[in-house]
């Protein structure tokens, strides 16, 4: 069975190669090739899953060694895959959700002339993401890590002819590179400390080294996670990443890639367990991002950006849980999986809405769409209920556990973290209700609002190319798009309940991540009750603001906080002023320095010699008699010198 692991990656990789190299000949069937290979990978994943289930708990780790990648001195990196419960969970999520989104994209990208290429990139993403979760050492993980970054870059910038898309893609890659720097430094530290960076030896010896080194490794891994998972302070790229086609946002920027940071932290649990300071930093980052994302999500009128804020916030929950140590690892992953379902479903729903609305993204120009798009409405609604934690839906279970675990951290920290998590739940309920109400309820604001919306420029290009600002005719999307939405909606409803039945998920993952029950200062039921109260408050406020009152089609000016939140809490402005402007000045002055100073010194030397020779040249005046003078003078000098030497 081990030999199948490589096939998991090989199938989508083959797809990417065939689609990207194949050229126009494959335009007509390319999307089906991509989808098929994605499903092949999913089926292999299922087979491996069945195999793992058939084994006893302690034999559930499989490895497959392919070849020695790099070997120099004691530096040794293998291409080895490791399939255990943790990576299996990811494999199923990635290939399952990935396949559904492939299918959805067949419909969504139908009119795009570069659809084949799109599927090539999607397959490339799948391969890289699978490599990331299947790698058996950090360096191979790094390959997948940057591979998904590349796929993300290509897909965000898929509509390259739009400068905004190209800029967003570049920004995503660059911000991720800062995180990647953290990962490479972490690997170097591991090598310097342990002499290896393979999971097995590093994690089993994590306790043998000094606290300081472990903290450094932990912080560097956290930096990496921040970049990939859009956590503060490296979160700025995610909002802009919504420039990509919506299926991309669903797959990469909601369900899978952005959760890689959580995977990294959970996978490196042994290091974090032994480095409490790094762990604390993880929880702080998680808690801050949780609120940050939620606040941004409240202010955005662009449906995708609102969802992006929500993604950031939900990953904040996961990172927070991962920072809690063994009490939280399992729940971080559980929330990751349920989030994968409902957030992918929500994005696909958003895509479906945009599909029916001439690619309009401004929610102020939606409204009352439930009549026109019943399936989208129902699936989106179920995803909405799941994310806000409506009882007995997926989010209810997974989020509740995280809040409990946060309280169970104990001490003041526990109260603060738990409080933040509760507050986050309330805000989540608020902004998701807002999205729901603005999109599917209320008056049909698209009917009489032909002026272009000033709030956010339209993301999808079709509206621009068609040049239409006429009244849209909302309609339900084709089956190829609705079926994935329905499947995901079922997952959002049921998987939380399923996972929690007899703590199935816990027992499944525990051998890899470890688990310990914390001692919560408050009882489980109190936490659940408090969460539900927060939920009701959040929904209530949103209803009061957007349900009862009509939504203005043009965004009101809003309070200072709203305006700041619309601008991503000014992070971009900060980046622009400090990094972009500062960097521009730095490079410009360096170009100047290089030209005037470094080159100038050399050219100055050359000019100096030129000047000197110009002077000396004048002695050479061409008059024979002056040459004769110098000759006689020289001869006289020589004679004098000789006499002098003799005298001495």
């Amino acid at each position, binding site marked *: 069975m081990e030999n199948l692991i490589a096939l998991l990656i090989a199938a989508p990789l083959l797809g990417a190669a065939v689609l990207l190299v194949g050229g126009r000949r494959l335009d007509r069937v390319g999307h089906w090739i991509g989808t098929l290979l994605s499903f092949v990978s999913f089926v292999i994943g299922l087979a491996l899953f069945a195999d793992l289930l058939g084994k006893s708990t302690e034999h559930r780790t499989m490895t497959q060694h392919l070849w020695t990648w790099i070997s120099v001195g004691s530096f040794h990196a293998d291409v080895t895959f490791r399939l255990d419960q943790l990576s299996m969970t990811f494999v199923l999520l990635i290939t399952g959700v990935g396949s559904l989104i492939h299918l959805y994209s067949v419909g969504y990208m139908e009119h795009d002339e570069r659809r084949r290429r799109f599927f090539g990139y999607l397959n490339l993403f799948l391969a890289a993401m699978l490599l990331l979760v299947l790698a058996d050492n950090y360096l191979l993980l790094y390959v997948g890590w940057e591979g998904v970054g590349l796929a993300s870059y290509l897909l965000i910038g898929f509509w390259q002819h739009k400068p905004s898309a190209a800029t967003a893609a570049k920004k995503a890659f660059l911000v991720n590179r800062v995180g990647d720097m953290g990962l490479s430094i972490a690997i170097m530290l591991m090598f310097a400390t342990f002499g290896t960076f393979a999971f097995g030896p590093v994690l089993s010896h994590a306790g043998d080294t000094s606290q300081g080194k472990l903290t450094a490794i932990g912080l560097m891994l956290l930096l990496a996670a921040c970049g990939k998972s859009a956590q503060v302070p490296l979160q700025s790229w995610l909002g802009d990443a919504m420039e990509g086609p919506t299926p991309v946002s669903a797959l990469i920027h909601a369900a899978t890639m952005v959760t890689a940071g959580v995977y990294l932290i959970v996978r490196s649990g042994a290091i974090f367990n032994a480095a409490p300071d790094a762990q604390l930093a993880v929880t702080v980052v998680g808690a801050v991002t949780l609120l940050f994302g939620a606040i941004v999500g409240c202010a955005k009128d662009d449906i995708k950006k609102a969802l992006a804020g929500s993604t950031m916030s939900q990953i904040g929950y996961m990172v927070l849980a991962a920072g809690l140590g063994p009490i939280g690892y399992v729940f971080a992953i559980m929330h990751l999986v349920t989030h994968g379902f409902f957030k992918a479903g929500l994005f696909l729903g958003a895509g479906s809405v945009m599909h029916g609305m001439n690619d309009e993204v401004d929610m102020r120009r939606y409204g009352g769409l439930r009549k026109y798009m019943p399936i989208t409405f129902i699936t989106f609604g179920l995803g909405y209920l799941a994310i806000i934690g409506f009882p007995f839906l997926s989010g209810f279970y997974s989020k509740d556990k995280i809040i409990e675990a946060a309280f169970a951290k104990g001490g003041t920290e526990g109260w603060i973290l738990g409080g933040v998590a509760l507050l986050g739940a309330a805000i989540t309920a608020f902004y998701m209700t807002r999205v729901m109400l603005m999109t599917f309820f209320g008056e049909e604001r698209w009917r009489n609002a032909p002026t272009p919306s000033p709030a956010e420029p339209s993301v999808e290009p079709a509206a621009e190319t068609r040049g239409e600002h006429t009244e849209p005719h909302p309609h339900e999307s084709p089956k190829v798009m609705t079926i994935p939405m329905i499947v995901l909606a079922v997952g959002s409803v049921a998987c939380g309940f399923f996972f929690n039945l007899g703590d199935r998920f816990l027992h499944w993952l525990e051998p890899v991540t470890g688990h310990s029950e914390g001692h919560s200062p408050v009882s489980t039921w109190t936490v659940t009750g408090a969460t539900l109260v927060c939920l009701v408050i959040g929904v209530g406020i949103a209803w009061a603001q957007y349900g009862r009152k009509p939504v203005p089609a043009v965004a009101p000016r809003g309070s200072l906080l709203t305006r700041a939140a619309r601008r991503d809490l000014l992070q971009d402005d900060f980046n622009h002023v400090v990094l972009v402007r500062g960097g521009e000045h730095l490079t410009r002055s360096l170009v100047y320095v290089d030209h005037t100073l470094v080159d100038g010194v050399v050219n100055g030397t050359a000019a100096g010699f030129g000047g000197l020779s110009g002077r000396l*040249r004048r002695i*050479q*005046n*061409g*008059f*024979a*008699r002056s040459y*004769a*003078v110098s000759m*006689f003078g020289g001869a006289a000098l020589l004679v004098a010198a000789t006499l002098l030497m003799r005298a001495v």
Partner: protein
Amino acid sequence: MNPVNYLYLAALLFTIGATGVLIRRNAIVVFMCIELMLNACNLAFVTFSRMHGNLDGQIIAFFTMVVAAAEVVVGLAIIVSLFRTRHSASVDDASLMKL
């Protein structure tokens, strides 16, 4: 007669020749002054030969004469051709060799 007197004469002739080279403009005169210097050297060589009692100086004097003769041939030819092209035998006019 004291052979040192010949050396004084040689030094005198050489100085006259050198001065001539430096101050005269006419190429022919400069040329003759050079010859004068060469002959002053010859005189000194022969004197030294006599004083030290070996023949090296005399042999070198013969070499000098040969070289001087060759020089006259080439030098006069140059001067003549210069005079033909420029209608002047002044050395200061022929300053084209400078950079």
